[in-house]
């Protein structure tokens, strides 16, 4: 007996489920009047340090909260909780990125209607997070001066998926002979016209311009 094989045409966007959920989240955030910011970077680029500083600085004036993704441990949530803001850890297990569904379930304990800003720290990874919309308003891609100016050329997709590039650890720039012009050129090559801000979470340099990226939706 021979087996007959047939070819059937289908059309299925593999990430459709995530995209649909992310769109619903975005609408919900807009309705709630909360400005949602996500952060992506390689491991060790300084997401948690910058987020801790961000939460501490904004908390005086605004209602802020954060969700933080990691494969394992609650270390980052514990660190961020020092800012005094509500923080929830998302443990992804074996998954190397956050997905919209994880954001949705982590939001369960947060009252987004009573927030001005929600920050989402993705798992440290410059590959997979590029493909997953989380419903955020603004996506920041962080790149530290110690990583080398060619990071954008090595990971063009994630830089292209983000709205603003944040160069971190500027206090180390001179020590590692960071070439700011080369970094700008490489970022421009993968996302023409991308806004770039430079910060040091340690010294606080550049924080004013950086905080200016976040626009509260509710009138105070």
């Amino acid at each position, binding site marked *: 007996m021979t*087996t*007959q*094989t*047939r*070819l*059937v*045409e*289908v*059309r*299925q*966007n*593999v*990430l*459709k*489920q995530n995209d649909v959920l992310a769109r619903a989240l975005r609408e919900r955030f807009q309705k709630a009047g909360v400005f949602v910011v996500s952060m992506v970077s390689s491991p060790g680029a300084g997401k948690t340090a910058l987020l801790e500083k961000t939460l501490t600085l904004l908390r005086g004036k605004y209602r802020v909260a954060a969700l933080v993704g990691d494969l394992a441990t609650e270390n980052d949530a514990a660190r961020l909780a020092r800012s005094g803001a509500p923080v929830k850890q998302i443990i992804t297990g074996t998954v190397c990125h956050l997905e919209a569904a994880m954001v949705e379930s982590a939001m369960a304990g947060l009252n987004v209607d009573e927030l001005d800003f929600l920050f989402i720290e993705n798992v440290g990874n410059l*590959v*997979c997070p*590029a*493909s997953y919309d989380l419903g955020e308003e603004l996506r920041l891609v962080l790149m530290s001066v110690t990583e080398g100016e060619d990071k954008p050329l090595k990971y*063009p*997709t*994630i830089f*292209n*998926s983000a709205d603003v590039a944040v160069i971190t650890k500027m206090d180390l720039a001179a020590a590692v002979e960071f070439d700011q012009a080369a970094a700008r050129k490489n970022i*421009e*090559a*993968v*996302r*023409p*016209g991308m806004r770039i801000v430079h910060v040091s979470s340690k010294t606080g340099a550049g924080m004013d311009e950086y905080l200016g990226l976040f626009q509260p939706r509710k009138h105070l």
Partner: protein
Amino acid sequence: MSIVEFAEEEAERRGSPRVTAVYLRLGAFSGVVKDALVTSFEIACADTKLEGSKLIVEEVPLVVYCSKCAERRAVSSDHWFKCPECGTDMPEILQGKELEVTALELDE
């Protein structure tokens, strides 16, 4: 939904016992690395209707729009977003983010 889950459901719905191939369009800016996908696909197929199936990947180049030339331009890694004709920056992506299953080969 994962590629394997989707293909299994389609096979089920069409009364097929086995999927022998999955055709996929993969954009240069999809965020997915082809070799990694092919390897993980094999692993994900174990103990499913897709066991031993082939993943046939059609790579879709990045195509952006040059507003100065008013033309679509297919580009590659050296100059992703610069028009090869006039050198203008071209931020608008028309094609290249695809990650979609376009066809399945099913046993009757």
